[in-house]
């Protein structure tokens, strides 16, 4: 049994993803509101008015809450960011994740816990010491190797570097999800081509495209190995999580505020199991194989271990989008739940639901339910298939709600 405090931090881009993270066993969630966060472009961002509800849900499940306030800040943002910090304080959000000195300094002065964002690119122990004046938790740059991470973690203990709370500074690392081609996300490609600054959360992801090099003298065009040469594969550390946790870090962050709730559920569930297995001494290659299989089913650009293992650069993806082995197909909406029978009623609005189908139900309160359908009833008669336009019912172990969405999970 390993007695190391490890926090699993999940992304929450929507209430559905938030519930999915909680259900899958996250210890904390992070999310953004309005435009001052690194997913400002996302249409599903929370608003300031949602903070109370988020805090209430998370306190109920004893999950810590972190609000991302990590874009660069202009003078015209000062009043808004201060208001956000005050709202964080009012609703007892656990901490804010910041990178701009203005935000770090103001939040600290207001007694709001500060975590340092990856945008600050912490790569050495002196930076950790500097930020320890303001912050109890800081994420290390994704570009560090395991050896470098361990050296910093060891030094924190040896030199007893403490944050404002008086406790040793907690170190956080990215464990899974999309990687940026630029160092610590400090990229200007999107700004140059579309005036759309990644550092204001508006990245248009130029790096995920293919490019051709043109010989200007003679006009020859070259495609580079048919690869997406600026698009890194996604980070995955589950197959060497023992080594990553062995460095002495305290928080595992999962990237993906733009991802769907079932992605959050699958990834968080896998890492939850892996952390628990590591601590219980049951982290085996057979289990790793199982987790990898599940992770491959949800959105991914192919996996690599990032820079942790000191691999050579050049793990570029060979597709434009996901290599997920499963996808979801919309079927319809929830209608009613019969608690005594544990039966959910749904209206099929597209395609059809067949006996044996693997399904996915998502909702703001429901989170994510994944199950299979063994018996379908339409008008109280057992049928093999419920067609478009029909209301059908089947067993669902957990409560579903009228606003929930029903999907069929199919192999790609």
């Amino acid at each position, binding site marked *: 049994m390993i007695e190391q405090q490890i926090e699993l931090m999940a992304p929450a881009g929507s209430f559905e993803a938030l519930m999915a993270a909680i259900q899958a066993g996250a210890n904390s969630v992070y999310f953004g509101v*309005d*435009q*001052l966060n690194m997913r*400002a*472009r996302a249409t599903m961002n929370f608003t300031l008015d949602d903070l109370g509800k988020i805090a209430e849900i998370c306190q109920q499940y004893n999950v810590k809450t972190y609000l991302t306030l990590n874009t660069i800040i*202009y003078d*015209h*943002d*000062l*009043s*808004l*960011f201060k208001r956000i910090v005050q709202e964080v304080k009012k609703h007892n959000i656990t901490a804010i994740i910041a990178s701009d000195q203005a935000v770090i300094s103001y939040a600290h002065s207001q007694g709001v816990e500060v975590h340092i964002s990856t945008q600050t690119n912490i790569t050495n122990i002196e930076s950790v010491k500097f930020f320890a004046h303001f912050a109890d938790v800081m994420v290390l740059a994704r570009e560090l190797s395991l050896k470098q991470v361990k050296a910093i973690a060891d030094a924190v203990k040896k030199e007893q570097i403490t944050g404002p709370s008086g406790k040793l500074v907690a170190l956080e690392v990215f464990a899974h999800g999309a990687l940026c081609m630029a160092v610590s996300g400090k990229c200007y490609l999107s700004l140059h081509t*579309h*005036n*759309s*600054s990644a550092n*204001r*959360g*508006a990245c*248009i992801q130029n790096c995920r495209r293919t490019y051709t090099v043109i010989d200007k003298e003679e006009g020859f065009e070259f495609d580079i190995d048919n690869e997406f040469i600026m698009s890194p594969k996604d980070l995955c550390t589950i197959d060497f999580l023992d080594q990553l946790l062995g460095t002495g870090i305290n928080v595992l962050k999962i990237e993906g505020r733009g991802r769907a709730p079932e992605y959050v559920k699958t990834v968080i569930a896998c890492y939850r199991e892996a952390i628990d297995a590591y601590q219980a001494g049951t982290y085996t290659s057979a289990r790793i194989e199982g987790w990898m299989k599940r992770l491959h089913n949800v959105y991914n650009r192919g996996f690599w271990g990032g820079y942790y293992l000191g691999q050579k650069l050049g793990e570029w993806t060979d597709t434009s989008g996901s290599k997920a082995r499963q996808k979801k197909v919309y079927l319809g909406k929830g209608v009613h739940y019969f608690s005594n029978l544990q039966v959910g009623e749904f209206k099929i609005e597209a395609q059809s639901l067949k006996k044996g189908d693997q399904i996915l139900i998502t909702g703001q309160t429901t989170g994510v339910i994944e199950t299979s359908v063994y018996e379908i009833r339409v008008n109280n008669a057992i049928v093999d298939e419920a067609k478009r336009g029909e209301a059908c019912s089947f067993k669902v172990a957990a409560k579903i709600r009228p606003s929930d969405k029903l999907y069929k999970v199919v192999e790609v």
Partner: protein
Amino acid sequence: MVTITQQRHKCIGCHYCVELAYDRWRMSKKDGKSVLLGATEKKGFYTVRVGDEELDDNLKAAEACPVKIIQVRQR
């Protein structure tokens, strides 16, 4: 006559419109989003009619807007 429309809630406060058409745009210190001067709001869309002399600058602002929420029409 030129009609300028802004879908304000999608603004991410990048400051480009203010840089390019200063006579018509300012940043709000209240919420950090840009303000279309003189506009009236209807269902989240802010609209103002201005003279042709403002066309060029506002076309530049519309083109530069990273979230494409500015529309400029001339008639």
